[in-house]
């Protein structure tokens, strides 16, 4: 990022600017946290409305010590990931198929584009009717939501592979699977990974809604259950867990990008 700053003047500026860069993003959240704790202890903010940060932390410790929290986290993560694998996998395969085979595009693309405009969450009443509040209902909803970003970006990625490289590959005798492996897939990968990152965000959103509406376990269930008993601290723990898990999923996607796209100067670490 700082490639344009060179020479001795850079060194003297470096330390304070890096420190500021590291600290600055945390300034607002930490101030908010302090304000939150202060208003709670001063009695301005009733715990019925929002528990104090200290209450949230102690509730977190209590829940994790009893193992209840980890059970819910495990169940939710498993649902999210299995939905992601199923929906993302089908999206990838269909995207590859429709982008590479003309007949598949003609046959399937119109249908997929129509279904895409239905919000997966609008299907919840039907899904409950079909699957009850079983695991399969959550798996279905998450898979469906995750499918489209992966499908569309895979399709787009393959269609926008550099024509010049394809031509070059053909003059080097590549066709079929070798052409796919050497040129088409790596060329489409940046776009596919955009789809993956998008889906990972969507995956949690859909799961949260599905779990709060119909579930017997999972973070969403824990949060909704806590509402019945006015346990605001447990509710906040649940909400924060979603934030942390979402962030972890995003870090994972970023890591994949950094590894798979390391040939791309945009993803190379500054030396």
């Amino acid at each position: 990022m700082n490639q344009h700053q060179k020479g001795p003047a850079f060194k003297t500026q470096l330390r304070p600017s890096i420190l500021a860069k590291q600290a600055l993003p945390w300034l607002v959240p930490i101030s908010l946290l302090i304000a939150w704790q202060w208003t709670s202890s001063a009695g301005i903010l009733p715990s019925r409305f929002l528990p104090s940060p200290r209450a949230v932390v102690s509730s977190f410790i209590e829940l994790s010590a009893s193992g209840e929290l980890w059970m819910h986290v495990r169940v939710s993560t498993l649902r999210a990931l299995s939905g992601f694998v199923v929906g993302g996998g089908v999206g990838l395969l269909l995207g590859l198929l429709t982008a590479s085979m003309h007949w598949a595009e003609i046959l399937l693309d119109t249908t997929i584009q129509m279904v895409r405009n239905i919000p997966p969450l609008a299907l919840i009443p039907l899904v409950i009717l079909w699957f009850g509040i079983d695991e399969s209902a959550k798996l279905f909803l998450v898979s469906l939501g995750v499918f489209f970003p992966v499908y569309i970006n895979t399709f787009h990625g393959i269609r926008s592979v550099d024509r010049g490289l394809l031509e070059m590959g053909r003059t080097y005798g590549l066709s079929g699977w070798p052409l796919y492996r050497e040129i088409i897939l790596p060329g489409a990968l940046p776009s596919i990974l955009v789809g993956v990152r998008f889906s990972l965000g969507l995956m949690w959103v859909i799961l949260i809604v599905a779990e709060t509406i119909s579930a017997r376990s999972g973070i969403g269930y824990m949060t909704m259950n806590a509402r019945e008993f006015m346990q605001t601290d447990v509710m906040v723990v649940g909400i924060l867990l979603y934030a942390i898990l979402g962030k972890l999923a995003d870090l994972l996607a970023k890591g994949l990008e950094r590894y798979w796209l390391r040939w791309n100067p945009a993803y190379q670490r500054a030396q």
Partner: protein
Amino acid sequence: MPVTFSSKEMAAAEERCSRGVSVGIKGVSIAFGGRTVLENFDIEISAGEFVAIVGRSGCGKSTLLRSVVGLETPQTGTIVVGKVAEHVKEHNRKPDVRVMFQDSRLLPWRRVLPNVMLGLEPALMPQARRVLAQVGLAERADDWPANLSGGQRQRVALARALVHDPNLLLLDEPLGSLDALTRIEMQQLIEDVWRSRGFTAMLVTHDVAEAISLADRVILIEGGRVALDDVVNLPRPRTRGSARFAALEERILSRVLQRRPAF
């Protein structure tokens, strides 16, 4: 940069020296959407010859090259790339044709060495390294193409073509985007490998001086036909400063520019 070859390589080069193939283009017409690019076009290129094709932008010189390698299909006419001579040791008689494009067209997601080895069996890695050394990039084998300069990328592209030991090398303005110094260096390199390997070469270029310094024959395309077909009778290596060089350049340039020759 001078390219050096070991005595063993020179001996191998002797044997390869007749590996070039002839190219016969007869009555070729190509049109894009009603616009005729080449019309009833004929040229004969003999085995091992270095032919440069010059002409204004859009005169069809690149299209001609692309149709030789099968990237364009002529509406009429035939293009025959000759068989490999009987005495050249080869697995099959099918000629190996490679192209060097104006942009290097390296795979950005493969490092330099795997790029050179595209379409090559993994067992031939030592050969790929040797060719990479010949173009002076042995120590860049593990770099990403994005970290090379334009001239270095073209050298990798040249190595990628050479590692297949082509019988016919098509050069589609490969030096067009390079700076003047790198260009001269690359011309030298291309001439050296052509002389040591003896493949047939077809070079498409805008640069008349480049055509004269490299080619045995300069062909000017105009209006989809051969407007000029001149043999360059200058001893190699050619020096641009010589009077005969300059006279020939002037003659071809004035023909391109439709000027009356000054002599």
